[in-house]
């Protein structure tokens, strides 16, 4: 069992408020891991700490063998969608992704087109992102996370704004990505998504993380 993400005794505090309390968890490679919990329970903060967006008050996080904040500032080989994905509203979806991809040059135009098609978007469309529906923006956000073919995906509420058809599409995509050997960490309000998709499920309650059975998450 290889570990993709290792979280060791992580605490996160904002002034007097403890948002994460001694989190200890490891996420195995090649599986889909679910995080459930109420709003404000600390799911997003944990994900931000894993991505290197926030530094834990204490404890350490290792992603792909490298300690976040020590060996790497922001882990490479990691794709994420956290909170609302941001794009330039006056440009097409493809142009937005191309701009992001050009920074690391890990994905060429063909790959971007392929990923857009995989999430159900038309890469040839000239439609500006400002004209996108919430669901289309979400699909574009997911394409942004996967286009550079990262081994680890951190997806915070990836089904937000998607209709039933969209949810089915993304579930299928996530299963395919798992088959390709990706490690996926998903936070969701939807117990059904978690139960259908995830190999392991953890529940966050007031900053405390505990593993639960898949059936219990429903």
């Amino acid at each position: 069992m290889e570990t993709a993400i290792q979280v060791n005794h992580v605490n996160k505090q904002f002034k007097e408020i403890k948002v994460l309390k001694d989190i200890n968890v490891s996420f195995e490679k090649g599986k889909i891991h679910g995080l459930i919990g109420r709003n404000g329970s600390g799911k997003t903060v944990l994900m931000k700490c894993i991505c290197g967006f926030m530094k834990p008050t204490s404890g350490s996080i290792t992603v792909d063998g490298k300690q976040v904040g020590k060996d790497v500032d922001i882990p490479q080989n990691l794709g994420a969608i956290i909170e609302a994905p941001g794009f330039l509203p006056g440009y097409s979806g493809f142009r937005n992704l191309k701009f992001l991809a050009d920074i690391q040059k890990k994905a060429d135009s063909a790959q971007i087109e392929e990923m857009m098609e995989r999430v159900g978007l038309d890469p040839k469309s000239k439609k500006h992102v400002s004209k996108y529906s919430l669901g289309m923006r979400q699909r574009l956000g997911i394409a942004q996370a996967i286009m550079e073919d990262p081994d680890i995906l951190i997806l915070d509420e990836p089904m937000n704004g998607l209709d039933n058809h969209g949810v089915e599409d993304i579930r299928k995509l996530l299963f395919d990505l798992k088959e390709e050997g990706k490690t996926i960490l998903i936070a969701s309000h939807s117990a059904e998504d978690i139960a259908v998709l995830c190999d392991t499920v953890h529940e966050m309650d007031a900053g405390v993380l505990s593993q639960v059975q898949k059936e219990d998450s429903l």
Partner: protein
Amino acid sequence: MDKCKNVFRICGNNFSKWKNSPRAFICLSLIIVFMYDTTAGTRALTAAQNMAVTPWLFPFILSYPVNFCVIYLTLILLFCDAPFFDEQFPYLCMRAGRLIWTAGQILYIFAASFVFTILNYGFSLLFCLPNLAFSENWGRILRMMSMPASTNFTKLYLTGIMFDSAGSANVMDTYTPIQALLISLLFMWLAGVFLGLLMFVVNLKAHQGAGALASSFFVIFNFFAFAFSRGQGFKAPIIYYFSPISWVNLTQLQMGSNARPPLSYALTMMSIIIIVLIGLSLKIMKRREIEVLPEI
């Protein structure tokens, strides 16, 4: 090389946002309206005298402190969201890294301030058309406009612009037209960079919005520095040593033996302040959490 390209990419990305930013349009509108109004007197005078004005008017537009307030409060409006933590920020930062992202934002402040300066200058020329003619000298119109108010019949025409008469005459005696223009443009650009970086640093350290207050303080301080240094009982031009925004105005710099800051002091201090602010921006951003902040 790639890192360098990414700095430019991130800078360019901020310019792309102007297309959909009401704030950018408001700033452009303010520049246009302000420059149209400011050059109204010059247009009237050139028409009445049937003479053209030379393209060296710009340094004198900056000689009246109310003009400063309008110009720089417009710039503050453009930069008040610095360090620009919008929804795109986490995704750019993930790919480029904090340092490159920050360098891109700093470059944007330099570039946007430059564009802002050129737009102001460009519109000041545009609105003087068609009575605009190139000359290596100041030209009769600008000489007339710098006459003392008591003898200056041209004031009748000057509905839009007010010259600091004594100061303007000194500037004409001290600098060549091209020198005065280039120094004014350089300081206007650097003062914009100073205000932008100040907002960047203060917003990072304090809360979003505090930077705009800090920058506005320096703009307003310039206004009061002008008022105090001219006051009957309080003549203290030394105050200009502590007012970087005032250095844009050539009439507030040392000419001859007055007690105002010399050009070399202004240039050196402005450079030091900007370097310190860049250093602070990079240092603070290294530890700053990556989070989206609401637009002001």
